[in-house]
């Protein structure tokens, strides 16, 4: 059973969001990393890029598959996790910790209302 920590928000595209004031940290869920298999590369937006909520902003590559990365929140990218480049396995190992993707300064804090609670997300993956 995939790990769905409390205290985070989730998207239907299997990203998680941790909101801290007006800054959100984004990554992919344990369920996502496990479905993708061994992740070998993550293409992230540049710092300073403006993101639109739910837009396609990068890709996650596993050995023989590539998946679009949709951002669960819109705003300006303030930081990306440079550690993934040298250690893509961290996404598989620790998707909610060392394997985080990027931080966004939220344009509109209200947009988080569009996201799923841990219970809703658990239900989503149970159904798929």
């Amino acid at each position: 059973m995939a790990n769905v920590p409390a205290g985070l928000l989730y998207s239907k595209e299997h990203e998680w969001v941790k909101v801290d004031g007006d800054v959100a940290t984004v990554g992919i869920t344990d369920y996502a990393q496990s479905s993708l298999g061994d992740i070998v590369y993550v293409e992230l937006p540049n710092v300073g890029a403006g993101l639109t909520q739910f837009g396609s902003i990068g890709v996650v590559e596993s050995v023989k598959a590539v998946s679009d990365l949709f951002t669960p929140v819109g705003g300006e990218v303030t930081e990306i996790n440079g550690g993934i480049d040298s250690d893509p396995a961290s996404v598989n190992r620790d998707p909610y910790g060392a394997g985080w993707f990027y931080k966004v300064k939220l344009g509109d804090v209200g947009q988080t209302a569009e996201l799923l609670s841990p219970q809703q997300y658990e239900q989503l993956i149970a159904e798929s």
Partner: protein
Amino acid sequence: MPLPAFDTPLIFETGKDGRANRYLPAGPALESLLPKDALRDELPLPDNSELDVVRHFTRLSQKTFGIDTAFYPLGSCTMKYNPRINDAMANLPALRDAHPFAPDAAVQGALAVMWELERSLASLFGMAAFSLNPAAGAHAELAALLIAKAYFRRKGEPERNVVIVPDTAHGTNPASAAMVGFTVLSLKSDAQGRVDPDELRKVVGPRTAVCMMTNPNTLGLFEPRIHEVTDVVHEAGGLMYYDGANANALMGNTRPGDMGFDLMHLNLHKTFTIPHGGGGAGAGPVGVASHLIPFLPTPVVRAVDAAGNDAAGSGWRGSEELTFALDFDRPESIGPMRSFWSNFAHMVRALAYVYANGAEGLTTVSQLAVLNANYIRASIRDVIDIPYDEINRHEFVASAQSLKRETGVRALDIGKALLDRGYHAPTVYFPLIVPECLMIEPTETESKETLDGFIAALRDIVATAKTDPERILETPLNTAVRRIDETRAARQPDLRWRPA
């Protein structure tokens, strides 16, 4: 049939400076001929004796599996026998050494090769003309979509930019569409794995540019309603493109041109016995209906008869009395697709193959390719899932889905177990719409005995999977190396040797 397991050091790890082979006279000092700052400081390459070079590459060849080594039922790749006469003809010094900028008068025979092949292909596939310019199938697809783009621009319909691609299509189709700025609309197959003209009718419209299909499709199934499909697209103002990857299934029996296709490509390295050479060079002639001829890539070969009349008729004729020229002056052409005129050595090979068969022989070729594929399907259908269990064409798909559920043995594992038994694996996990897919294409050049051996091996693998799956999961054991850590290869790319 084990492959040798010895290690072969890299060519860079062997040899000694100065151990040179004397192919040439010693060159003068470069410093005496060119300014110092134009020259490189060092050339960090190894010097090896010719014997060591021969031994190195011979050993590498021994760790490589080809059609010449054993049966190669790789679906969608048409791994048929590559006749040696083809290579001998391509290596005739006059043809091998002709220069592309030689004047037409000095290369009439080379131009005749291109023209005779082009005329033969046009008749065989029902196209008005082919260009031999594109270097491979995907390259020809790109050429075809550029032709479509130019055509719609001339018609004043530049808004047509949607390419409809069935979900069974080859991965190159959407990739090629993206390279001409077209967007892709994926069309779901019906329950029989085919394109439903009524579903298609719902998605075509004023933005439809091209519908790309192959027939038989990638499941090996013939699309009997193809005429309705092409009508739907034509009525909507679009063009029909035939992906010739599966041409070995119908060559000589029915023609894409008669089905209503406006554009097509052929993979000469599949249907026309060009050696695959470990993944190239290929050759991908692109064919068009008459209204698209002006847009073909440059150059095209023109032929005139003794009276000075254009000699292009409805097909092949003898070239002895004709005079040929390369025609670059084609104002509506999409332009050239590559440095020179064609992968010419492959045109020689393909023409030699056409000569070896003639129209009747080429027709028999496709019929026997279909026979061989159906024979394998009929001989394994009681032990493995056949998702579309009906008469197929030159290939078919099996699925390891139930086997995986019962035993944990996947399509991939069946492939690896076949390697251990001296057979190349089928194509696995393609097409994407069939889970745990094994796509099997035997081709017509295999004998019944070879097919029987393969059938027995496959049945044995399935039986072993049911009693002792571990024995399948640990395969291959008889190969130069065992299963490879692909994750490590992708996470820490090591793509070259570096000097210590």
